[in-house]
């Protein structure tokens, strides 16, 4: 389906844009703002607000119509390619098919100290009304907390014979989350042969879920993930997908 942005009439293509340019405010600056809006495909574009900040910067608000079409059939997304199971079902599958508890090690690595996200996934408390992984009878969870170094993580994963390693990254300034994730996956590749390597999962509010391969991990979870999604994925990736039920 082909669609366009909607202001107040179907197909009007209206959008709002704001940005700062590193120049003082004058007519030319507004022209420069319109040039940028034009490059972005806005036509007509109106500078509806311009305000100089300090002596070398100007903030602009621009409204206008974009002519780009959006083709919803060409959209690339990380669809959920596994069934969403209930806690009960998850425990059962593990019990019946794995015949031992599934071991998970979680941590917030690097110098990132944001634990709320990983805790929401791991701790019993959970989030959005869903209990965290610790609550699942058949899951054995180790939450290493925040500011965990990659070597410590690898060690613990090895010691615990982790089936899966869950890593959180919230700070994204200067691509910290990407650097840390790459370092982590590299360390695991180095430390363990393909066969024994645990499933590598990262999550955080600013990840692009399509980058898993690029970052050398098995899966990425983004904004608003819930524990049940993660648990369902674990069961899928580690059990049902591997050897389809007899």
């Amino acid at each position, binding site marked *: 389906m082909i669609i366009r942005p909607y202001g*107040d009439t179907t197909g009007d293509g*209206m959008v709002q844009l704001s940005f700062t340019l590193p120049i003082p405010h004058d007519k030319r600056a507004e022209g420069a703002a319109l040039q940028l809006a034009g490059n972005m495909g806005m036509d007509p574009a109106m500078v*509806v*607000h311009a*305000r100089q900040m300090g002596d070398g910067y100007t903030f602009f608000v621009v409204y206008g119509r974009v002519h780009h079409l959006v083709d919803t059939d060409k959209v690339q997304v990380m669809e959920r390619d596994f069934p969403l199971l209930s806690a009960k079902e998850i425990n059962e599958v593990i019990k019946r098919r794995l015949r031992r508890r599934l071991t998970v090690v979680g941590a917030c690595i690097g110098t990132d100290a944001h634990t709320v996200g990983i805790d929401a996934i791991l701790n019993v408390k959970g989030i959005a009304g869903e209990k965290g992984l610790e609550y699942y009878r058949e899951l054995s969870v180790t939450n290493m907390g925040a500011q965990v170094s990659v070597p410590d993580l690898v060690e613990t994963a090895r010691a615990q014979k982790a089936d899966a390693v869950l890593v959180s990254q919230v700070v994204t300034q200067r691509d910290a989350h990407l650097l840390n994730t790459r370092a982590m996956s590299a360390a695991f590749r180095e430390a363990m042969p393909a066969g024994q390597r645990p499933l590598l999962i990262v999550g955080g509010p600013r990840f692009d879920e399509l980058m898993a391969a690029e970052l050398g991990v098995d899966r990425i979870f983004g904004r608003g993930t819930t524990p049940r999604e993660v648990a369902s994925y674990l069961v899928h990736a580690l059990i049902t997908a591997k050897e389809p039920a007899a």
Partner: protein
Amino acid sequence: MATTSPRSRAGGKLAGGKLAGGKLGLDPRVVRRARGLAARAGQPVVDLARSHTTVSVERAVLRLAGVTGADSDGIPWVNRLLDAVRADVGLGHGVAVPVFHALRREGLDDVTVLAQKAAAGAVRFAVPQQKAEVTAARRAAARATRRGLALIDRRRTERERLIRRYGDPAQRPWIYLIVATGDIHEDIPQAQAAARAGADVIAVIRSTGQSLLDYVPEGATREGFAGTYATQENFRLMRAALDEVSKELGRYVRLTNYASGLCMPEIATLAGLQRLDMMLNDSMYGILFRDINPIRTFVDQRFSRQIHARAGIIINTGEDNYLTTADAVEAAHTVTVSQLLNEFFAHEAGLADWQLGLGHAFEINPDLPDSFRLELAHALLARELFPDAPLKWMPPTKHMTGDVFRGNLLDGFFNLAGVLTGQGILLVGMMTEAVVTPWLSDRDIALQNVRYVLNGAGNLHEDFLPGPFIRGRANQVLTEAVDLLERIVDDGLLNAIADGTFGIMKRPADRGKGLDGVARQADDYYNPVTEAL
């Protein structure tokens, strides 16, 4: 939804100035004096209105008498008929008698058919000579218009029934949203979406041109500029669409339009016939902001308010507009004066206090020190002067800019002022006020804003006790209003309007659009509708 918290319901009432004495400690004698002066200033204009009629008043009578539809050029039959009558006998006698006399003479029973014949030049009109003929014509006219009024009465009971069934909004203020696409078929889904998102009242604003049209367009329309034409069919379509959502939401969603411009009386009539619930209807807006002749306006005004009274419609007045052309601090007292005049005219026309959505607005320059507290002083003054009126609280517009982030902030403080001062109807402000007519997303962001404020601070009025600054300012505005009213009583309201007292717009009584549509009532003037109201 947040706004249904019972506390905030109570809140609305509580802040309604019901507290003995109120929070401002206004001197009851000064308040009484202000009302007295407003009555004296308004009476001459009422006399003027009682002694004149207008083309639109007479066309409204014809509509109530059953004339419907339009000719092939879209000119309503009421216009064609009225013009024919006027050509033959003038306006002064009223149309009722000549028309129903002709109807009998022509042996017709359908007034619309008569209109069509008249338009074809096939009918001549006269004021009958014999007393008997006059009486007969009057009786016939009265019978016909009674049917029209009966329909309005039915609509009113219908509304009362639906409100009993679906219920009123849980909270005060009622949340009032504007749609303005210009196309009734885009308006409808947007209005329904707005209602689902929490709007209690939907207003369809009109195309820029309509107020100067001396006829009411017919049918469903799709080509308005910055608003949608007010037509009987558009009214019907939108009311039906809102009845649908009212049912779905279990909350009666009200519909508003504008009884304003040259066809004010007819539009008021159509609103009554299609069960609109509120109408913008100001005694001076048309004069000041549409350059419509003052006398024309005051005559149309009175008739339309009599209809609104009968139809159980809540009117909204337009004092907010003055503050877009005049300064909100300097002109604060003109708002108060206008509210007092609107109240007087409304009562005189038979409207009850619960029907008076007196307007005012959050238009003080936000850069002014203590601007927010000044807003509170002004808003609370209105609240305590008119404790039983569902005041209409209008958002910032004049000082809104293209800085939409700042815009959303100002709207939040406007909402807060509304709940702190117990306003009755809150017109939801849009962050894009200075940019475009509201987008779908603007309305959604604005409603989130209202919901946050009502839910999080809706009861803050319990903790709001005006200090000397706010009390002082409110009393000062009241004093200035009294002074101005005294001057108006001396010079006369029409001269005050001519001098630019309101909104700095100078509008002499002998100028402006639509004056030619006004006529002095002859001694035998007869209007079956006003008789009945």
